[in-house]
């Protein structure tokens, strides 16, 4: 009880302070002169007086952060966090938009795209972990399949076959993980580390042996697809229904895996194995087979995430091009409490702040870029510490299943 109270005081106190700062900040803009322009795609744009708008936001946040102090509303401490997060981000966006158009639709579109590999990676990890196999090798799987997918698409001269090979190679690398951690009963984190190291070596080696000697550097990239009719919807049409295949696949997979996990036989069995493998075994479910299957499926999704880098985005492959996104995906997965929608949210937060960082730089906000780069990481830590709290992993995770 007492601990909770401190938490409320500290958190709401901080948000209160932040909102007061925002209100103070709003007076920096001369009345009637500073105008922010927000673009909403085809819906047109909205122009607002910067100072006044920021002040209104600050007041909303202030109310939100005062509420938890009232004893009756103690449990709304998360509300105060979310309103303040909203007001702070909005206030900074308004600041950035002074004098120039700030394209909200573009920002969201970019966020969704940048979140794609993270969400996919998180779901890859989730599939493994839901059956009780830890996967810290998402990074390695993504890197390998980015490389293999690209190589195959070059040599076979067909990007769709390349995409298929990327997914396949993700699955094959995952098979190694499954073999090591399920059959060989290796510590699952060790096995993941092996794959991460191997991936760096292997891709570097393949790139040098097959790509550079052959002087091949570039392939086509996956086409942009506009969903007929739906892409005409204002705002959503651009953000959701006009995208490249892997983004669509990602969104589809979030829905599909949610349904699969919670509504189908396969999902029920998968979850049961992650929670209590003996129980699943005693009702005749083949634990080993299900684990293999899920780890390989997870790897294939990681393969898709890898293809996003090489085939969908850039049409080239560079060493280490996944740039630690696999580890971010791991964070998104834990953040999302091993749920596809949670993983999607987590990935989106990263994508959003990464996109925001770029746009802030373009808008010349006088903050050193290093601090903007930090943004997604700091936000994740705060959210994890204050709002999400403890996320409980599947009970049997990391424990190899042994039959007698």
């Amino acid at each position, binding site marked *: 009880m007492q601990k909770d109270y401190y938490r409320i005081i500290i958190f709401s106190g901080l948000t209160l302070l932040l909102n007061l700062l925002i209100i103070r900040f709003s007076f920096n803009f001369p009345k009637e002169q500073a105008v922010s322009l927000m673009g909403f795609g085809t819906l047109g744009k909205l122009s607002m007086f910067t100072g006044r708008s920021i002040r209104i936001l600050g007041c909303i946040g202030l109310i939100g952060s005062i509420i938890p102090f009232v004893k009756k509303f103690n449990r709304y401490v998360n509300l105060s966090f979310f309103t303040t997060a909203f007001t702070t981000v909005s206030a900074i966006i308004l600041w950035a938009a002074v004098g*120039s*158009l700030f*394209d909200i639709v*573009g*920002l969201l579109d*970019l966020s969704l*795209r*940048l979140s794609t*590999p993270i969400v996919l990676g998180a779901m890859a990890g989730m599939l493994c972990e839901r059956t009780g196999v830890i996967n810290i090798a998402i990074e390695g799987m993504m890197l390998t399949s980015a490389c293999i997918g690209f*190589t195959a698409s070059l*040599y076979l001269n067909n990007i769709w076959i390349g995409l298929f090979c990327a997914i*396949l190679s993700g699955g*094959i690398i995952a*098979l190694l993980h499954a073999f090591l951690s399920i*059959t060989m009963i290796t510590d699952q984190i060790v096995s993941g580390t092996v794959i991460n190291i191997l991936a760096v070596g292997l891709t*570097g080696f393949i*790139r*040098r*042996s*097959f790509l*550079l*000697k*052959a002087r*091949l*550097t*570039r*392939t086509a*990239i996956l086409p942009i697809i506009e969903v007929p009719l739906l892409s005409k919807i204002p705002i959503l049409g651009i953000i959701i229904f006009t995208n490249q295949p892997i983004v669509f696949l990602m969104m589809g997979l979030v829905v599909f895996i949610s349904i699969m996990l919670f509504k189908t036989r396969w999902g029920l069995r998968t979850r049961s194995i992650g929670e209590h493998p003996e129980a699943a075994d005693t009702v005749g479910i*083949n634990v*080993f*087979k299900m684990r*293999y299957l899920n780890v*390989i499926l997870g790897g294939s999704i990681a393969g898709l995430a890898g293809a*996003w*880098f090489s085939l969908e*985005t*850039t*049409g*080239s492959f*560079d*060493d*280490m*091009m996944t*740039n630690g996104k696999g580890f971010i995906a791991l964070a998104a997965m834990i953040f999302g409490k091993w749920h596809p929608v949670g993983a999607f949210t987590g990935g989106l937060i990263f994508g959003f702040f*990464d*996109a925001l960082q*770029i*746009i802030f*730089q*373009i808008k010349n906000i006088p903050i050193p*870029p*290093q601090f903007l*780069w930090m943004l997604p990481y700091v936000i994740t830590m705060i959210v994890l510490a204050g709002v999400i709290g403890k996320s409980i992993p599947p009970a049997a995770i990391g424990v190899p299943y042994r039959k007698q």
Partner: protein
Amino acid sequence: MKRFIIIIIVAVVVIAVVLFFVLRPKKVVEVVVVPEIKVGLVTDVGKVDDKTFNQFAHEGMMRAAEEFGFEAKYIETLQPTDYDKNIQTFAEEGFDMIVTVGFMITDATYKMAGQYPDIKFAGVDQFYAEPLDNTMGLLFAEDQSGFVAGALAAMMSETGVIGIVCGMEIPPVIKFRKGYENGARYIDPGLKVLGVYIDSFVAPDRGKAAAEAMIADGADVIFGAGGPTGSGGIVAAMEKGVYGIGVDQDEYYTTMGGGPAPNLLTSAMKRVDNAVYSAIKAFAEDTFKGGHYMNNASNEGIGYAPFHDAADRVSKDVKARLDETLEKLADGSLETGVKL
């Protein structure tokens, strides 16, 4: 269960074998030459095929080695603390000349040059406060290169907004960016230049995202300055149908894989390969002299690549003005205004 695993293992083996034979590189017939003189190259953190200066330096070295019959080897550095060690490895293997690539190796090169006075050193992007007799600092006027790119971008832009996607915030990149901005303003002082640093040289996805955000903000020329990250920006430009400008080397051949690339205007060249080549050439012809060697517009150390597929879209006037700018930079009548 067992059958299931066996099927998968067999499938993997078959795929692996097929891939192995399909993708097996042609064996290069080795010509055995017995060279007497050995040239070595130490990379900045990264590999000799990183599409940036490491690769170009390596290519320049290979060209020279072939021409003069030298034996050429390289060491790829993994961590900055290994610079000294890698240079020493060459020195103790009896190499006669060592090329070090990147400004990060400046101090190590200088130190080792003092230790091994008989070996000649050439350092790409390196400036020594008190140069030794056996060290040659190969410097580049990136600002001039960026200036030319900026001038071209300003002339080609219709919206009055242009963009630059940079890699990490390090001196050569900063010089490119500032040169680009000044070049654009030289043509059109009211021009808006959008710029973004990305905290990695190998994040083409984020480079692309940055470029897209700029294009959404009205930019119609994107200069990608920073390895694969910048190339990501160019890819975005190609996709969205706006102009792109490459960096360092002619990206028409590297990033765009030899075309077609109707929207790739040109590349802001930084001839690391030429500089390394000339340094080795000087050594081969015994004209090696310590000191700094500035590669700029006046000695064709920087410049711009051919327009290739975009040639018919660049008008004669534009080209004339561009060449004039380059000439002015070369003869010193025009300054880029970049100080670092």
